[in-house]
């Protein structure tokens, strides 16, 4: 097991070979049950090669609470949610403050926006706050796969450096 660091934070990481073989644990965050149902079904039907376990959260607040106690490999994040938006939730994850802590592993977990708010300015904002990609609703499977694989490759690149 190798130890590396990014932005001064120590990360416990599997080797690239282990990550290639290990399936990932995904958190889906969306306040709309229809969207949760569709996305989870897509992962269940079409991503069995990649995804081991999917967990649903219906709010950014719930997501942060869970990320404080459990490690995840990928987050699929709705943007427009009440109380905490997807952007605000992502900022909280990346900042990992004492007021709003998450597990160190989760601080740099890849986060993909899944949203109808997908204009150029909004995409730039998502990137700025630390999201790795944005998938538009309605979700096209090939684009979801491309985004997930791209996000996971980003993690592997870090491991190899």
């Amino acid at each position: 097991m190798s130890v590396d660091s990014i932005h001064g934070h120590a990360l416990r990481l599997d080797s690239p070979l282990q990550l290639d073989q290990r399936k990932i644990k995904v958190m889906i965050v969306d306040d709309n049950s229809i969207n949760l149902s569709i996305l989870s079904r897509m992962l269940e039907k079409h991503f069995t090669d990649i995804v081991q376990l999917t967990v649903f959260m219906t709010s950014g607040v719930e997501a942060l609470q869970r990320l404080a106690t459990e490690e995840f490999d990928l987050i699929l994040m709705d943007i427009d949610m009440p109380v905490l938006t997807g952007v605000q939730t992502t900022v909280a994850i990346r900042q990992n403050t004492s007021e709003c802590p998450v597990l160190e592993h989760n601080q740099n977990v890849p986060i993909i926006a899944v949203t109808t708010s997908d204009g150029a300015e909004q995409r730039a904002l998502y990137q700025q706050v630390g999201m790795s990609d944005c998938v538009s609703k309605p979700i096209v499977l090939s684009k979801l796969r491309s985004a997930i694989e791209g996000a996971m490759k980003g993690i592997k690149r870090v491991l190899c450096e």
Partner: protein
Amino acid sequence: MAVELRDDSDNGSDYSRPGSPSLSLPTPPLSGTSRSKGLGIVDHATFDQLLDMDDEDEFSKNLVLNYFEQAERAFGDMDEAMSASDLLALSRLGHFLKGSSAQLGVLKVKASCEKLQYYGQRMDAAGQHSLISNEEAEKQIRVLLTQMRHEYDEAENYLRVFYGEQEDEEGDEEDQRQQQ
């Protein structure tokens, strides 16, 4: 692959219900007229993606039924928000229903929900940042809600016919006319 179910949002809807009761009616093939009516009402490029994920649990049918419940609740909430002149609530509700409408390919409802989202923020229908007055926004929304309801009823009718819950009376009449 394990799936952990967590909570059920939007007032108790069960968003993932393997094993839940489903309609026993088989799904009849749509007539050519009925299928073509889908154009403009339901985007089959999107909707067929959901059909492809169907199993014994009739995933897409349960999803659609869930959408009907969600939409009815949303319309009720919109009426309340309209009565209270709560434009921001109307915007939020528009955005909420836009998402699920988009996911199911319910095109007109999705488009109207987007307009509602913008009017509720006192923008014009295209979402440009030219602010309109509260009175103008309410006026536009009042008209839009009526239009949206018609569009939803059209989509609901189409989907219920698609799943064999009701007869496609208009399509049958058209088929008979074409055969004569």
